[in-house]
Each structure stands twice: as C-alpha cells, then as structure tokens.
C-alpha cells in the first residue's frame, strides 16, 4: 500500500467513492502484484488462524520461564462467579486478550498483529464483538483491512516494534488498529474510525518497552488488555462524535518522536522500567542462563 498518511487514505476514499477497506485492499494488491481474490483469500486465512488460536487456548499452559499462563482462564471463570466491574462484555475482552497473549508466550500458534507481543489486542476486540453482534465473517475481513491499513501507515511514518519505538509502537499501534476496525463494525464512518485510531494511540503515547528478563511475558501479557480496552473506549468516544484535537497523522509522528527520545534501556533491552525493578532483576537472575 503506497499511502503515506491517514489523510491521503481518506482523500482517496472521497475521490474514488469506494468503501475504505476496498481502497486499502486494492492499493495493496496493486503494489504487491496479487489479485483482489488472492488478497481476500490471504486475509481470510489470517482470520481463520486468529479464530483457531483463540479456540486452542489451554488453561494449563505455562511459559518456559514459568512466569505466565493461566490468567486468561482465571479471568474467564472469574467473571462467571461475580459480575465484573467493567461489565460482561469488557470482561470477555480482557479474558480473550490475556488468553491470546499467554498462548503466544507459551509457544502456541498465533497471528502477529502487528507483532507477536501485541497479538492479543485485535482478536480481543474483534472476537467478542463478532459473537455479541453476530457479524458475518465477510464483514470481519473488511474490518481487518481497515486495521491493517492503519497499521501500515503507522509502520511507514513511525514504527511498530518495541525495540525501535517502545511499547507504544506495539501495543499502542495494535490498539489504534483495533479501535479503527471496531468503529467500522459498529457502523461508524471512516472519519470516526480514524478519530478512534488517533485517540487510542494518543492515550498510550509514552508507553515504554520493559520486558522482564527480555522475555515477551511480563508486562506484555497484561499490556494486551490495556490495548484492547483502550481501543474500545476510544471507539465509543469517536462513535459519540468526539474528535481528536491532534490529527491522526500528527499523533503518529509524535509517537515516532517520543520513541526516538526513549533511552535504549526502555526499548526492549530488558534493562529499564519494570525489567529493572528489584523483582524484575531477581527474576532475570533466576530465569536466564548465567554466562
């Protein structure tokens, strides 16, 4: 996809009078030299893989380090015992985010979206929403194109890896992608989708990447929860007509700027932040082979 900005993408929609997801799909298919059918078949495969990954969660899974596993099951069962403060729907979203991120940490098959560490955000928003509103898969694929289009512009203008831009670039980007997608599913227009994306990214700006012992486990698993819940609150704001004062493209540029100002210790090196806390250091000594 050759769009360099969200604005350019929205302009193309106005000019061509086609749905935004279709413009994103066609633009990408043209660039990569595949047909629209091939593109859709691939997206459908990805969606199938995401759903399969959700089904294949196992309560008993634990990561090699033993740090994570089982929380997704705890959440799923807990919300049956007592009404969650956030309400049932958000309860399911939290459970799904934890489960997918735990599956990743435990070497199960997942779909990177946009990264493996942030793979729980998008499915945690999309899967519960689909089952609550009985949305056909066809429409889910359309929402995935919108998510991917947003993600690609973030990747082009800024970055999507914790090593480059901190966790705001991973969980923040995933959250913006999910927010834009779910607004589409809820019947919002493209401008509202992008307002939601902007708000979601803004609200996670500055988030550092500080994985304990350098492993994609702590705080990564629970960060997927804030990515998903943040996407939903941003989507609700946008659907009520609330706008981001700072345009989406400028938010993305600010994210890049913030990322480049983060010290290396806060960019996936497993040194600063939570990784550098006394407990983080103790865990690191325990789980990493001594050299």
């Amino acid at each position, binding site marked *: 996809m050759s769009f360099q900005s969200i604005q350019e993408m929205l302009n193309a929609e106005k000019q061509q009078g086609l749905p935004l997801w279709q413009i994103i799909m066609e633009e990408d298919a043209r660039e990569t030299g595949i047909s629209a059918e091939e593109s859709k078949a691939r997206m459908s*495969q990805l969606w199938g893989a995401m759903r399969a990954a959700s089904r294949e969660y196992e309560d008993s899974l634990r990561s090699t380090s033993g740090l994570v596993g089982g929380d997704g099951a705890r959440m799923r069962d807990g919300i049956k015992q007592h009404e969650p403060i956030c309400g049932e729907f958000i309860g399911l979203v939290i459970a799904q985010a934890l489960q997918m991120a735990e599956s990743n940490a435990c*070497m199960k098959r997942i779909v990177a979206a946009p990264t*493996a560490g942030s793979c729980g955000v998008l499915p945690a928003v999309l899967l519960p929403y689909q089952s609550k509103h009985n949305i056909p898969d066809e429409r889910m694929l359309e929402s995935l194109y919108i998510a991917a289009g947003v993600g690609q512009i973030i990747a082009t203008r800024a970055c999507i890896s914790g090593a480059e831009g901190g966790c705001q670039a991973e969980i923040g980007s995933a959250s913006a992608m999910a927010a834009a997608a779910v607004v589409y599913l809820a019947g919002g227009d493209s401008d509202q989708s992008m307002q939601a994306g902007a708000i979601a990214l803004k609200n996670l700006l500055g988030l550092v990447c500080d994985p304990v012992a350098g492993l994609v486990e702590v705080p990564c698993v629970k960060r997927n929860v804030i990515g998903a819940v943040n996407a939903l609150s941003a989507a609700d704001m946008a659907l009520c007509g609330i706008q981001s004062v700072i345009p989406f493209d400028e938010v993305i540029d600010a994210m890049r700027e913030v990322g480049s100002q983060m010290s290396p210790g806060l960019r996936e090196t497993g040194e600063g932040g939570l990784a550098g806390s006394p407990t983080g250091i103790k865990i690191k000594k325990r789980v990493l*082979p001594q050299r």
Partner: protein
Amino acid sequence: MNLFDILGPVMVGPSSSHTAGAVRIGYVARKLLGEFPKKAEILLHGSFATTGTGHGTDKALISGLLGMQPDDIRIPQSFELARAQGMEFSFGTVALRDVHPNTALLRLTGENGKQLEITASSLGGGRIKVIEIDGIRSSFTGEAPTLIVHNLDRPGLVAEVTSLLYNQSINIATMQLYRNRRGGTAVMIIETDQLINRKAVEAFEKIKGIVKVTYLD
C-alpha cells in the same frame, strides 16, 4: 512492507525475531546443506544467547533444521523429534564481532557427509539474513531463489555462470561476489527472479573451477 507484514505472519510464539526468525535460519541452513543434518553444533550470539532459551530460540533453530516453517505447531517438541530422527545437536554461546544482536552460527554435517557452516541474523518480523557461509562473508535473505557458487578465484568464471543463467532465460535480481583472498576461494551469491531447475544447477557443478553449488528455492 505490505498489509500482510502488518497482519501476520501466522507463527508459533513468542517472538517474531527470536522464534519465527530462528526457525527461518534453521530452515535456510537445512536447505543450503541439501540433506538431513545428522549433526548440528549451534552457537548463539548476543540476545539469542541471553534470552534464547526463554524465547524458544533453540527449539526454533532445530525445527528449521528439521524442515519446519515458523507456523509449525510441532516447534515446541522439536528436540524430541530431532532425537527420534537421529539428529545429534548441541548449543553453546559465542561472541561475534560487529553483528546483529540476534545471530546464530551453525556447523552442520549432513547424513551423506556434506558440511556447512553458516552465520545468520534475525532482523525482526521473522526476516533473516545469512551473513557468512563457509567462512566467507555474504548477504542474502533466502526470500528469492538463491544460487550460491563456491569457486576458485579465477577470471572468466563469473561470465560462465551468468551466461548459463542467460541461456535458461533466468533474470538475475542481485549478484554479490566475495572471496577470502586473491586467487583463493570465492563465492558468488545470485538471487534470481525465476526458479532454476535441477538440471541447470547440476550443469554449474560441472564447470571447471567450481567447487560447490548450493541452490535455495
């Protein structure tokens, strides 16, 4: 970068660089060896050495050597699978100079006695780069069909190889030449737009001065 670099790959977790990329390194090494590796000595560098176990980098490398792709759900069991197939393997650490933090060096011996030593880095997002092959510097990703020719450093060999490719209507996308010293052994690494058939690869092996030909499709 396209949409499916953003959504995807479908992969076994937990890390696209430490797990998916490591599977790719093993896979490309296996392809380059061209036969089942009965012995593998693997040395991990940098972040691969420190956080590799927690990220399953070791299991991922062995999976690749068994011919698995990054989305293979058998990756966590690769050690057992490799032992069952009679592969002997060991892991160690190494400090290499001026390389990407996620780098591995593999010394392989195939079931028919072929030997290969490669060093490769995982660049992120599951993409990799082979940076050294049999002691000679290189740079290729394994994403396009790649022909690797070890030859004596003599005039005319490059022309012979490229004209053979031309005769097969194969277009060269990139070409790199490396050698250990003047008049010693040299390596040509040629990435092509089209696949090269087996017969053509064998024809390369018959050219005088060519020591070893490896093809990766």
